[in-house]
């Protein structure tokens, strides 16, 4: 079974990345520091690096899974949290909360996360409504609507930044670049419910995602409740994108690249694709974040810059490679 062995390899690489990642940074910390009670190295390892690597893994997995769901739903490899405006929606929701400092928490989840989830849902709702209004649910109108909404929300964020004081403005800008630098256990707990809810919904829908890829008419004919499945996918993806964006800012391209590469590795059957995408997305962001922390140490690059630097060329390759486009 080729596909099973790919999954096992991805699992082992993920475990290795999560174990080794925390040791690498401005200085290499030996594994023994973990047990050296009271040492500075132990504090850095346990309080800073381990939560950061775990956060990177979860955030990467969530973005990748939401990208996978959108790509299946719209049967288009270019449908991602970014191109559909969902990331911008989430970012707007979070930016409003950062600007006005409306911080409170419900059951340990910060209000920013709810705002980002709300923004993501709003974006999805607008894209969906716009295409409905047009009478059809075609991929082309959907992507156009997504890009229009994405631009609109980005402009509103720019406006909020413009009218903000320098310190707010700087905070928003740094956060918009996408970074995992603020990772700690509180933020990890913040993101966890969004991860659990979103990935649980997706794991229930693997057969439906497969059928949606063959076309809505075939899915309907096989007995899929297409309207309900669409809503659940929108909900799950909004939860995951909102959860990530609130904590890490909009980190681009993970949601586009990971599912696409996994489709080349294990095929399009979501029973294999979903776990592979989950592992690959997490692994990918851990590696990118490790690079972000080390290449210009002691300074660090926002991880969003690294993923975008890798993702831009990948996006162009995807556009030029017609085969990749039609073989979703």
């Amino acid at each position, binding site marked *: 079974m080729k596909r099973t062995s790919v999954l096992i390899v991805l699992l082992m690489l993920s475990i290795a990345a999560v174990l080794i990642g925390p040791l690498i940074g401005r200085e290499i910390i030996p594994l023994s520091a973990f047990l050296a009670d009271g040492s500075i190295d132990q504090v850095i390892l346990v309080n800073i690096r381990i939560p950061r690597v775990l956060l990177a893994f979860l955030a990467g997995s969530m973005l990748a899974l939401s990208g996978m769901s959108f790509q299946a739903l719209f049967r288009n490899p270019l449908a991602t949290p970014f191109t559909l405006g969902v990331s911008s929606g989430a970012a707007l929701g979070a930016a409003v909360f950062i600007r006005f400092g409306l911080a409170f928490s419900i059951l340990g989840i910060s209000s920013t996360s709810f705002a980002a989830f709300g923004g993501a849902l709003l974006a999805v709702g607008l894209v969906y409504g716009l295409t409905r209004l047009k*009478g059809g649910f075609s991929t082309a109108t959907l992507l156009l609507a997504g890009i229009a909404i994405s631009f609109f929300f980005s402009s509103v964020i720019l406006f909020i930044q413009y009218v903000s004081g320098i310190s707010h403005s700087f905070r928003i800008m740094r956060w918009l670049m996408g970074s995992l630098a603020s990772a700690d256990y509180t933020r990890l707990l913040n993101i966890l419910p969004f991860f659990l809810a979103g990935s649980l919904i997706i794991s229930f829908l693997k057969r439906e995602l*497969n059928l949606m890829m063959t076309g809505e008419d075939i899915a309907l*004919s096989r*007995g899929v*409740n297409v309207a309900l499945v669409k809503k659940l996918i929108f909900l799950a993806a909004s939860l995951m994108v909102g959860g990530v964006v609130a904590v890490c800012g909009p980190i681009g391209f993970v949601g586009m690249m990971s599912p696409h590469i996994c489709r080349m590795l294990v095929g*399009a059957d979501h029973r294999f694709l979903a776990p592979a995408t989950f592992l690959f997305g997490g692994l990918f962001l851990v590696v990118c974040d490790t690079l972000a922390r080390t290449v210009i140490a002691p300074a660090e690059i926002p991880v969003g810059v690294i993923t975008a630097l890798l993702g831009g060329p990948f996006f162009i390759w995807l556009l030029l490679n017609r085969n990749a486009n*039609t*073989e979703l």
Partner: protein
Amino acid sequence: MTKPVIQVENLSIRLSGKAILQDITLNVSAGEYVSIIGPNGAGKTTLIKCMGGIYRDCGGSIQIGGKAIKAYSSKELAQLLSYVPQAEGRTLPFSVEEFVMMGRYPHLSPFTPLKAEDREAVDRAIAQTGIEALRNQPMNTLSGGERQMAFIAGALAQGARIFLLDEPTTFLDYRHQAAVMRILKSICSDSGITIIAVHHDINIATENSDRMIALKDGRIAFDGISAEITDSATLEEIFDTPFHCIADNQRPLPLVIPGGAE
């Protein structure tokens, strides 16, 4: 006369504000092979999509097995009928077996693995359509005819007793046209499955089905036995172009070709 499995009464539907079907009334009995013909834009595809539950906002009433189509859940309806769209023009990143296996969806509940009976249904469907050799091939590499076979296999695996097919032979070469028609006829006569198929080619339609329904401008222009439609005046009325009927001693019905006598 057996009880009708599909009863359509005063069906009408508008899509994007345009009336596509108006006042369609028809009955189909179990085990019938009904061909639907008509000019482009007459509403043939829309009609079978309404009967297949793909379009749900239709006016009038559609009953499947004596029960309103809207009263069925998606999965219940899928166990009764299967809509087979045109196989061309879509990307299907699955193997033939994976695709046919998806036909079992209405019989599965989430998280239950496939049972032996599901695998048997898939094996039977693949054997019946003669595509054993293509089992592990990616759908995207198949020819149009092979793809159409896989689509029919998917519908067979679904276990439905009514098949609604949209132009199953269009774009196929002659050998595959013949192969697809042979399988559809055997499904109908041997397994007693009701078939309603949109056909582009009148001769394929008249040769394979006893009953013809012709649509024109969203209304029924003809509904009767095939022998009555192979008549140039009737066909000209439907298609707005002259036809030529040529008697052929190999076939019970004359061959129909468009174009008037020189």
